[in-house]
């Protein structure tokens, strides 16, 4: 039990800190050094999603339904996957059109129709009131618990008269706080950097508070979460919480909650405000998409252990599970921790209330009150800045008092979670008009109005009305037997649908009505020009974003415009804005000049930030004389501009293609030159190769002719040389012809099943003479069975002969040893020819298969081959789809290897 004054002093100190942070944030923003312009603050500010409901209600829900609290956090996690392309598009649209609330956004999409904005505002207010009352309830309950809790047997005092009700004072305090924070001045962009900073700070506080309570309960009161879980499993009552069967409504409810929270994270007015309006940089969405789910995960880690702890400690007593987070530390006499938890809850509640009331007051002011006020002559000419602020402050106070009323008369009979879900279901009504609206051009104004109204009506009938009945405002007979005895109209079982819990039931019918009317009406509707224009601007925002769609051709003076802006934003503000505009567009002075269309639309955007796009339009048209450009003309401008963009895209494409073609041509040319060079080289090498044997044939023939006296022995020797050299010549010419054939691809290839064993045998026998002459030993290692490959037999023999004669060339006569080895493995036949010659340097191993490559530095004598043998072998093996390579180390001989795919017959044998 804590004294009143302790709690109050701590709370006020805390609120003071918040205010200081907000003040500092605003100051920094004015100085142009934003403290919120980073993805982390953005992420933390999104965590305004976690309200007092998360803080106290999750534990309460977990205590009764086990995992039932999780879909509320899984939904946003899943939805975050879509942020990068859905949310980014929404942000871009809102930035381009200066939209400052969800009502403004939807109204602007549907032909800037004020009626749409009004409907959205009304749905928002009706839907969010329960949520705000929920926060009041949470704060006042936690305050009372902190003040009065003594033991588990203690029973909470009943709420007394209004004047002794803490919730009323909480509501008033929050109203003051929100007014101080949110309506200090009217800003064109409707951004509140200071508040975002404060909200981010609150998010840190609530996470830490929850974590501290969790760690304390798990590790100090119990010996860790596993002990808690173990205790719980022993009890049949608690072990049920490990399963999903305790979830009311079962898996359908789980699905609905996931869906609702997916929509809520984007379309609750306060989430829209934080995510879209307060966004500084689209890129921040990227980090927030995964960091925010991480925050949710972290804040939910201790929910189950805490609720189990509460259930175990307070077994047999009636302690409200929603208060476990406070009562468990209090029970253990840890008042400091309880106080910290209270601050966390206060953070959660104030954060939500501030942002929600600011968002709602902006909507009420811009979309509900201003359109009406501006029609009244009296207001058209006055300085409206004070009026604007008064409306906003009044609506903040009004919202909170209404929230209090809801809490006082209805909220008591509900648990925290149910109230929150009613609000979620209301926010989900915005999902179809936005999601369909930003992707489907044909979604029309009438469709949107019909969809919104239908969804809203179903929501009222199936969720709000029953809540009135339950709290005794109207007869409960409507729940049991339907209105006027029409059984099929029962609010919880519409048309006899009785398989769902109330929330799922309501979401199903309202979404069906909403989407059905939106799509159905749109399909049969004819859009007018304004609708088509806005739809195009929204759907194609990434294409048209930079296109100027000014819609004013009339004339007005700069000073008139400036006066108009000043009436809403204050003289200093307007001066500054216009000076900035002049600086940006290099205009020396803006005084008494005719305002051009650009300046008019600039002023309109400024105004629409402050009073909403619909009102801004009305105001601008009051000072601009002359005709407004017709919307058809704007559409034409848009079309022309997008055509231009299209053209420039196409030109870019063409020039890229040209560049590519040039690149290809250059490469082809280079290749041609290379081939030409190779051909020359080939010719000169071949002629050189041919000349050597020819020369020796000729010179020996001349010797024989000129010296008839030569003895037989000499004569014989010379003739032998002549024969040998002519043989070499023939061989060379044959090889060149062969090579030319293979190269020109005119060679005829046969393809049979060939036994490699026999191929090697034949090759060896035809070359054995050469081995004997050079006295080099040839060893043959072949398996007994046949190895079949699909190949051209003669060419394969040629390859083996080439490799063998190549080996002979590099072996020292007398000590030379050559081994030919055949093996088969893994679908491949492998032939190796190994010698013990000088080996091949690694640098040369790649080159030796090239034309006329002859090993350098080994022998100075005349070349020993055409230089074509290996090249031809290489081509042949490649032609058969095989592989040929060499393995060698200098000084240790060389091993030539080729592999060919086995045919099936040899594989099976």
């Amino acid at each position, binding site marked *: 039990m804590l004294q009143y004054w302790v709690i109050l002093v701590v709370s006020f100190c805390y609120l003071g800190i918040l205010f200081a942070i907000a003040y500092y944030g605003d100051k920094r923003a004015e100085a142009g050094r934003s403290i919120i312009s980073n993805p982390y603050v953005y992420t933390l500010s999104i965590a305004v999603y976690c309200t007092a409901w998360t803080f106290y209600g999750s534990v309460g829900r977990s205590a009764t339904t086990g995992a039932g609290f999780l879909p509320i956090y*899984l939904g946003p996690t899943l939805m975050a*996957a879509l942020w*990068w392309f859905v949310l980014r598009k929404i942000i871009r649209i809102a930035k381009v059109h200066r939209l400052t609330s969800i009502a403004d956004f939807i109204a602007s999409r549907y032909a800037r129709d004020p009626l749409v904005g009004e409907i959205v505002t009304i749905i928002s207010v009706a839907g969010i009131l329960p949520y705000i009352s929920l926060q009041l309830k949470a704060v006042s309950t936690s305050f009372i618990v902190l003040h009065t809790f003594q033991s588990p047997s203690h029973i909470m005092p009943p709420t007394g008269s209004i004047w002794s009700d803490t919730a009323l004072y909480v509501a008033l305090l929050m109203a003051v706080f929100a007014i101080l924070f949110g309506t200090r001045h009217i800003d064109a962009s409707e951004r509140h950097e200071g508040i975002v900073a404060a909200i981010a700070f609150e998010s840190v506080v609530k996470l830490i508070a929850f974590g501290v309570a969790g760690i304390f309960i798990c590790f100090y009161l119990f010996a860790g979460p*596993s002990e808690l879980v173990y205790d719980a499993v022993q009890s049949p009552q608690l072990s049920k919480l*490990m*399963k999903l069967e305790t979830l009311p409504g079962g898996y359908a409810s789980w699905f609905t909650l*996931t869906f609702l929270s997916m929509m809520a994270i984007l379309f609750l007015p306060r989430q829209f405000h934080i995510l879209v309006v307060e966004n500084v940089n689209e890129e921040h969405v990227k980090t927030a998409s995964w960091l925010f789910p991480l925050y949710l995960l972290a804040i939910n880690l201790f929910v189950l252990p805490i609720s189990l702890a509460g259930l175990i400690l307070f077994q047999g007593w009636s302690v409200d599970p929603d208060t476990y987070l406070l009562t468990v530390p209090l029970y253990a006499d840890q008042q400091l921790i309880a106080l910290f938890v209270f601050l966390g809850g206060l953070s959660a509640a104030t954060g939500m209330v501030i942002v929600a009331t600011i968002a709602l007051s902006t909507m009420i002011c811009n979309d509900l009150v201003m359109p009406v006020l501006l029609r009244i002559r009296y207001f058209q000419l006055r300085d409206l800045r004070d009026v604007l602020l008064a409306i906003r402050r009044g609506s903040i106070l009004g919202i909170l008092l209404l929230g209090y009323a809801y809490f006082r008369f209805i909220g008591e009979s509900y648990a925290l979670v149910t109230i929150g879900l009613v609000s979620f279901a209301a926010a989900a009504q915005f999902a179809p008009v936005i999601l369909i609206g930003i992707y489907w051009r044909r979604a029309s104004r009438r469709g949107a109005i019909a969809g919104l109204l239908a969804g809203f009506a179903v929501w009222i009938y199936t969720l709000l009305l029953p809540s009135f009945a339950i709290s005794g405002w109207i007869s409960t007979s409507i729940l049991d037997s339907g209105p006027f005895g029409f059984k099929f109209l029962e609010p919880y079982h519409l048309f006899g649908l009785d398989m769902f819990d109330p929330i799922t039931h309501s979401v199903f019918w309202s979404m069906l009505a909403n989407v059905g009317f939106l799509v159905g009406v749109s399909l049969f509707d004819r859009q007018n020009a304004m609708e088509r224009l806005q739809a195009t601007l929204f759907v194609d925002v990434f294409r048209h974003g930079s296109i100027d769609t000014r819609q004013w051709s009339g004339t007005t003076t700069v000073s008139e415009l400036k006066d108009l802006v000043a009436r809403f934003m204050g003289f200093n503000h307007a001066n500054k804005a216009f000076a900035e505009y002049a600086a940006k567009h290099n205009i020396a002075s803006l005084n008494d000049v005719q305002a051009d269309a650009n300046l008019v639309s600039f002023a309109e955007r400024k105004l629409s930030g402050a009073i909403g796009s619909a009102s801004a339009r009305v105001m601008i048209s009051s000072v601009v004389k002359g005709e407004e450009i017709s919307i058809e003309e704007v559409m034409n401008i848009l079309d022309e501009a997008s055509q231009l963009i299209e053209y420039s895209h196409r030109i870019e494409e063409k020039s890229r293609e040209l560049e590519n073609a040039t690149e290809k041509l250059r490469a082809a040319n280079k290749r041609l030159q290379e081939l030409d060079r190779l051909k020359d080289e080939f010719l000169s090498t071949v002629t050189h190769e041919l000349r050597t044997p020819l020369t020796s044939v000729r010179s020996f023939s001349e010797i024989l002719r000129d010296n008839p006296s030569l003895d037989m022995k000499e004569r014989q020797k010379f003739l032998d040389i002549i024969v040998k050299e002519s043989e070499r010549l023939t061989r060379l010419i044959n090889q060149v012809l062969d090579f030319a054939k293979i190269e020109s691809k005119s060679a005829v290839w046969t393809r049979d099943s060939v036994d490699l064993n026999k191929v090697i045998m034949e090759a060896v026998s035809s070359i054995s003479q050469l081995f004997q002459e050079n006295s080099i030993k040839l060893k043959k290692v072949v398996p007994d069975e046949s190895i079949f490959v699909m190949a051209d037999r003669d060419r394969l023999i040629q390859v083996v002969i080439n490799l063998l004669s190549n080996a002979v060339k590099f072996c020292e006569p007398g000590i030379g040893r050559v081994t030919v080895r055949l093996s088969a493995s893994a679908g491949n036949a492998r032939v190796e020819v190994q010698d013990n010659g000088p080996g091949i340097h690694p640098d040369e191993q790649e080159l030796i298969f090239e034309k006329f490559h002859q090993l350098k530095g080994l022998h100075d004598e005349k070349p020993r081959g055409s230089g074509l043998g290996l090249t031809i072998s290489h081509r042949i093996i490649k032609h058969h789809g095989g592989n040929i390579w060499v393995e060698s180390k200098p000084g240790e001989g060389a091993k030539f290897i080729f592999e060919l795919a086995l045919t099936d017959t040899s594989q099976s044998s």
Partner: protein
Amino acid sequence: MAESKRQNERLIVLLIIGFIALNYPLLSLFSKVKLVFGIPVLYLYIFTVWSVFIGCMAVILEKKSSSSLMNHLPKSEKSE
């Protein structure tokens, strides 16, 4: 543009997988009183899927080096 499209496709597939993994009927497989590492198997499953989902999202969104590399790829594909 092509790369951001790929990124979007990946994110949508991730969302679908996540939605299936965290709903009936897959969820019902883990709805039983059983402890793994001292954690109820239902919670272990949900929190694991949750963490993996976040991890995947971070990888998809924050992958910078490859996205700049990918931007050049379509050009070279065309030239072939």
